[in-house]
């Protein structure tokens, strides 16, 4: 579904990362972790066709990524919604379905029902007629998820959906994404700072730091040996008795990935 070989990305002359190799099939849950500015969102921009690779090749559904692929659902990190957005939630979800169509149409009833069904699938049916501006961070993430899912995508890209969520909302959202991955066979890629809450659900992980990318199963990638080999410096992966992970050494003075 998604394949990269020797993929490199950058802005102009500045290279963000290089030599990325990965391959994801359908129905896989992938976490993308790493420090700020490591190029996690850049990877999403390449997958969405918003930016061209600076080297190597990237195939999505067996073809070069192109902007506007309806088979990709996307939840960006930044949104324009604030307290002054007096528009009901179902409207935003409907736009996920028909917001790309030109011409005036007060939206068909079929669209409306599809949008309500998408809200139902993320457990936000009761929020349908609430204004977007009054929702909490966790509720908004559910609405964005419904907006991304309403067009029945095969790939779901979530850019830091867990930031600003408390522990309980974080767990709820992860269970939700995981159930979408398992029940609909959607491949989900999720950018996060902290891998630990994700570990129970993950199939694969992409670890980005210092211009390099490590990819594979969490148990294979997140070891002292593999990261030391990749970065050529001593990296320690520590595990506590609950299975939580801390990576030390790659980011030098920038601290661990929490």
């Amino acid at each position: 579904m998604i394949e990269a070989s020797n993929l490199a990305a950058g802005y102009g002359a500045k290279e963000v990362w290089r030599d990325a190799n990965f391959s994801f099939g359908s129905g896989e849950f992938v976490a993308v972790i790493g420090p700020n500015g490591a190029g996690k969102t850049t990877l999403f921009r390449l997958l969405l066709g918003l930016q061209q690779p600076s080297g190597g090749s990237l195939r999505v559904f067996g073809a070069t990524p192109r902007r506007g692929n309806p088979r990709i659902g996307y939840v960006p990190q930044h949104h324009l919604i604030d307290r002054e957005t007096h528009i009901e939630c179902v409207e935003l979800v409907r736009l996920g379905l028909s917001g790309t169509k030109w011409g005036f149409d007060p939206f068909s009833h079929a669209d409306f029902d599809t949008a309500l069904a998408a809200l139902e699938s993320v457990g936000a049916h009761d929020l349908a007629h609430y204004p977007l501006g009054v929702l909490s961070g966790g509720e908004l993430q559910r609405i964005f998820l419904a907006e991304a899912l309403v067009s029945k995508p095969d790939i779901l890209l979530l850019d830091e959906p867990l930031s600003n969520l408390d522990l309980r909302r974080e767990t709820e959202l992860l269970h939700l994404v995981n159930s979408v991955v398992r029940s609909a066979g959607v491949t989900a890629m999720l950018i996060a700072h902290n891998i630990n809450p994700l570990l129970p659900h993950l199939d694969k992980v992409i670890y980005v730091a210092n211009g390099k990318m490590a990819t594979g199963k969490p148990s294979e990638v997140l070891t002292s040996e593999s990261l030391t080999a990749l970065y050529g410096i001593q990296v320690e992966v520590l595990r506590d008795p609950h299975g939580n992970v801390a990576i030390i050494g790659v980011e030098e003075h920038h601290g661990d990935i929490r």
Partner: protein
Amino acid sequence: MTMDLNLVALLQQIWSYEFMQHALETSWIISVVAGVTGYFVVLRRSAFVAHAYSEIGFAGASGAILIGIDPLVGLVLGSISGGIAIAALGRRLTNRDTQIGIVLAFALGLGLLFISLYKAFSTAAISILFGEILGISANEVLLTFAAGVGILVVMGFLYRPLLFASLDEDVAEAKGMPMLFLGTAFLVVVALAVSFAVQVTGVLLIFSLMVTPAATAQYVSMRPSRAILISVGISLLATQTGLFVGYFTPYPVSFFITAIAFTLYLVVRLIHGYVHRRFKEPV
């Protein structure tokens, strides 16, 4: 019964004056146009941009009078060139109040220079600044009608992608929407709408039709299509009542339009605040 007859007679009397006919016709077109475009101005937080257009239009209009052409032409040219210039800066820059404020101040100063160069111009200046709906010619009505139809057709075409881009810019872009085209087309439409609405409200009172009705409407309905209809309704109510009251009093029509729009806004906010106080709590 006699009241009804009196009202009909009164309306017939008002309609018998050509300047009132032109005023009413223009106000209908402008109310619809401002109600529709205003909704997106409010949604996209572009109120300050809209105001800048009207003041760039002021420089255009006063310049037009100076060289002896119809001020409406100057208004349209002025605000559209401003529209394209600001759109070229891109959306992220569009909301930069500082730069827009700098351009706005310069445009107003330029307008002032044109006024001082043209003697016996003060009444014309007042009518551009505060509106002179009672002095609209038949040609201007036709021009307004043509522009109004054009604006509504374009807005109908842009409707869904513009709503999408206004609510969720990054997703709309990823879905392949032409963001620069949408932003530019919208700003040019707003510039055009503003320059015609200036006939009714004047440069300085432009918000009373471009912002207040839409801002009020979004508290009444959370569904955009309905809110737009309500916004149009409020604009119509304000202009029609304003013209009616203005006809019988010596005070300016623009004042009544702004006062009615403002009063409606206050009433709706108060009612909304009361009805929806539970929304204020985190849900």
